């Protein structure tokens, strides 16, 4: 159990670090896919199989592919290496702020003392429970999400196409 956790954690961190450091955008996307799969593994570890499946389908299956498409459509030469922001000062400034946040988070987490063990041993969460919950108490939320997806879809179409209108005319 713990071995699996540490291995997956290592892979996730590795994927994340690579994703933000690699210069080649395509490579960065592939490493973030690695990160996503590691997270999916962690979900499995936490007995959330369905969420793991969704994670793989949505993130690796579609978001990743979408990103690859976006890169191919925007960058004139594939894998065009790019630099980081303006100057070293900016970079270090960013890292510093992030580190500061991290520094605040860690004491917050540890001080809460969450050392309780899992109570999932007497409960086997299945997709059925999830589905039931989704359809009864959370029905309205599903509706809202559906609307949001629609709006997002429309928005995406509009955003992606509006520019072509100006190039047409």
């Amino acid at each position, binding site marked *: 159990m713990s071995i699996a956790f540490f291995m997956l954690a290592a892979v996730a961190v590795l994927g994340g670090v690579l994703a933000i450091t690699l210069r080649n955008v395509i490579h960065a996307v592939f490493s973030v896919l690695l990160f996503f799969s590691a997270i999916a593994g962690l979900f499995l570890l936490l007995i959330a199989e369905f969420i793991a499946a969704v994670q793989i389908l949505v993130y690796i299956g579609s978001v990743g592919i979408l990103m690859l498409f976006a890169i191919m459509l925007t960058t004139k030469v594939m894998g065009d290496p790019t630099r980081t922001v303006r100057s070293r000062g900016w970079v270090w400034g960013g890292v510093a702020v992030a580190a500061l946040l991290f520094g605040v988070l860690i004491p917050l987490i540890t001080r809460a003392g969450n050392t309780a063990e899992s109570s999932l041993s007497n409960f086997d969460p299945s997709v059925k429970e999830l589905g039931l919950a989704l359809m009864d108490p959370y*029905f309205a939320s599903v*509706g809202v999400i*559906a*609307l949001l997806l*629609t709006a997002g879809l*429309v928005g995406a*179409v509009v955003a992606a196409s509006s520019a072509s209108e100006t190039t047409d005319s």
Partner: protein
Amino acid sequence: MITAITFIPVLAALAILLLPGAGRVSKPIALVGSLISSLLAIYVVIGFNLEEGLQFVEKYEWIPSIGVDYYVGIDGLNALLILLVAILSPIIVLASWKIKDKANTYFSLLLIQFTALYGAFTALNFFHWFIFWEAALVPAFFLIKLYGGNGRHKAAISFFIFTVLGSVAMLLGMLFLYLKTGSFDFIELRQLAADGVVSSKLGDWYGWIFLAVMLGLWVKVPLFPLHSWQAPAYAEAPVPVSMVLTGVMSKMGVYGFLRLVVPIFPEGIREHSDILLNVALITIIWGAFLALRQTDIKKVLAYSSLNHVAYCMFAIFAVGAANGIDKINAPAIAMQGAMLQMFAHGVGAAGLFYIAGKLEDVGGSRDIQDFGGLGAIMPRYAFVFGFLVFSSLGLPFLAGFAAEILIFSGAFALTPIHTAIALLALLATAIFLLTIIQRIFTGQAHDTHGDLKEISIREVMVISPLLVLTVCIGVYPTTWLNLSNRFIETLSTLLAG
């Protein structure tokens, strides 16, 4: 069989897109694909047994855990509409013959559209019915967006936004209904509604679910005030797509009402029949009067379409206002009128859009004020145009009249005052259609018309099936009405209570 009819067009579309070298022969492939489907569909409808209910059923389990089956069949309600798709689809392909730009994409989209239409009309399970319903929307969106006129972007987007929002509302409503009743099956739901299960299970939600389900159809028909997408979409779409939109897509909304709302929510319609009747009436008047002030010929036809399809809804809602069955069985007459109106308007309006499109082809403008005196230059064109116009304004022995007289005969017995007001729209229709004829065909020919060419015999042949049908429907409507007679009798009894 029905599965074959449904999917042959999409197979043809795949062939165009995937087979190497098929791109160059996309038109013949599209024609053959749609024609095979059409012939099969006509064969099926001819084999339809008038004495029995649901026929040609195909039912396979699909997702058993949530009660989704692949369930198709033909009954009195959809037989006529399948026939309509079958008749129009090859004509629409032929009407697109002159497309040059991106023809492969165009014809693939068109074929996908046909599949979706066949699918939507034959499906008996909400699940894949909805898939086809939405699938019909997507090719239409792209066809408008890619091949339309100057205002196509805005038209396509408002078309898309309106219909998608409507569909979402309907989907939510149906999902809720599914959760309460546990069925996606139209036939089963209808039985549940008849047993009072639907209303008891929905309880206080009944009104909201009724509204939600209706909303999607409301947009599609369309009825006031959700009709704004229609005129720009019809006007900006390329002509064959306008033919699809007005000929078939607008019927999907009415069909949806008869398939979903009337059997499942008859109490809802009965309870709100006065509001609904007024809405239909306003739509009728609205379309007719808006058309009066238009000079863009396709917009005129679009508004006229709004007006004509609203007659169907008017008939249905009038039945909702009925108190039982009287001696002339007015509910059945009105509803049969609505059925015939769908068919007649599908045929006639598709023809009108085709012929109006020719005007743009030869004259380069859609504005009727740019024309004049064409009657002398293009007598053949004038004849076809006049023929369709008179069918549209309800000349007896042509299609429009037969349907409208049934609607009015039924509706007048049910709600005389509403019907009498609706008759005003007949007058307005006559005025704007005759004004078009007067502008375009009479008077002295403009100097700029010297090089206008008469439409060819080939083009007349393309549309001639529609003309012949118009006469057939008008002279002896019984042939077509028989298809739906039994079904409508029970349906109208159900709704009239």
